[in-house]
């Protein structure tokens, strides 16, 4: 009962109230709907703490048991506690403990700029190299479908840069007007691909996803879908 029925009831009540509040935005549903959303926002913060707690548990255990690369876990824990202390105690904050935690000049802001930003930014920047490598190795025009994909990609890659107008100017200077016209048309074609075929495809995907989300939400609210409760939920 406590492990299965209560959570299913909570999901049902909360989900139903929020749905009803959309249609009857008056007391008690309107207020309850807003309250539940507000509580949700607050509980989300506990999820951050849970994440931090879990991180400490995993890495302390790794260090304690001297598992492979345990030395790097010390780096993780050091980074975690230094950043946490800088933020929670607002160390070096020009406005003191009452100021904005991210205020310029605070240790928290400096660590954000000198560690968080380069680390997170570069992790994603690496993808440029892997996209290029994958394009060379895997992007093959093996059939009509792949060829269409390739052509659309080429038009977008070219059309979303100043290249077409530069090339068109070159051809116009050389007196090859039809090529100049063709390259001048690339940005228009790019806009058309985005506004028409891309729009149609994305809209079909969007409608498909919406139907999926709606049915999943219904399954959750009605208690049909219980996998989020874990293995002993049946």
């Amino acid at each position, binding site marked *: 009962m406590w492990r299965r029925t209560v959570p299913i009831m909570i999901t049902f009540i909360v989900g139903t109230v929020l749905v009803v509040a959309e249609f009857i935005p008056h007391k008690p549903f309107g207020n309850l709907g*807003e309250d539940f959303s507000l509580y949700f926002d607050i509980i989300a913060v506990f999820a951050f703490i849970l994440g931090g707690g879990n991180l400490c548990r995993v890495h302390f255990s790794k260090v304690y048991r001297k598992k492979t690369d345990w030395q790097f876990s010390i780096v993780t824990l050091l980074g975690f506690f230094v950043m946490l202390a800088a933020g929670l105690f607002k160390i070096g904050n020009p406005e003191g403990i009452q100021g904005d935690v991210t205020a310029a000049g605070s240790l928290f802001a400096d660590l954000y700029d000198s560690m968080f930003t380069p680390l997170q930014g570069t992790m994603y920047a690496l993808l440029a*190299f892997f996209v*290029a*490598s994958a394009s060379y190795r895997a992007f093959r025009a093996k059939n009509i479908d792949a060829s269409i994909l390739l052509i659309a990609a080429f038009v977008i*890659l070219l059309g979303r840069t100043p290249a077409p107008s530069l090339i068109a100017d070159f051809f116009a200077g050389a007196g090859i007007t039809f090529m100049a016209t063709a390259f001048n048309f690339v940005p228009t074609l790019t806009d058309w691909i*985005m506004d028409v075929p891309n729009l149609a495809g994305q809209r079909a995907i969007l409608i498909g996803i919406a139907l999926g989300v709606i049915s999943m939400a219904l399954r959750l609210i009605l208690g049909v879908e219980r996998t989020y409760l874990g293995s002993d939920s049946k």
Partner: protein
Amino acid sequence: MANDEKNNRGLLDRLQFIDRRYIFIFIALAVIIPLLLGLRFEEKPSPIVLALYDKVDNMPPGSRLLMSFDYGPTTAPEIQPMVDVILRHACLRGLKVYLMAVWATGQSLTVQTVEDVLIPEFPDYEYGIDYINLGYKAGNQGLIRVIVDDMKRMYSTDANGTDIEQVPMMKQVESLKDMDLIVSFGGGFPGIKEWILFAGDPGAIPIGGACTAVSAPQLYPYYPNQMVGLLGGIKGAAEYESHVLDRYPDSFKTKPTPGMNMMVAQMVAHIVIMLFIVFGNVMYFMYRGKERKLAMEK
């Protein structure tokens, strides 16, 4: 003859399965060299970018613009130029600017933007009267769901801890419905899509977007009925910068244009990747032809 073919196939093999680090070097050079050269070209705004520009440009002075910083350092190189140029445009037009973040990483970037752009370039803009930093709140779409009806339930203070009731520019604001335009800067979750779903559509509030190129194609179905305009990736930023420079040359000629500056590197890198794809396909078909020929000979 057989030896020649074997050598030929060996070369094809090597090119087909070339060490990816050579490709990495090409990409790095394709980006670094144009950046060092510092070239810049004019950009013609596409209709979807122009639509957002026109919306901001046609708002009467004193109108309320909410800018939501829904991004982090990962996508800042793409998004920050859009934030800077729209903020400059808004301040030039005399709009009241409300800054907030649905992403935790957004609050640090909000402070940086205020320090780098707003304070030095618009000294007449007064905190609490012309602009406010509401800061970050957790809750993703749950947050938007609450503030679309009642802003002060979540924002009891601004980012500096000041009582929201004491801030002059918040006195007339009860909910997001009091905003004349909301522009979400981001692309991930929560982002422009959540702003449309949970604020724009239910509250009939105009929503504009400035997002990463990755997420731009997914947002086209919302334009123009559910979203007033969209800046997609660095190209969108460059188009907006170029257009605003064209319309307000006196105010913008000395301002940085990071979007336009990055477009040449972007162009060269795109061309290099296209050449890689073409070359990869040529190698592939030559390799496949040889394979078939060898199989037939056997």
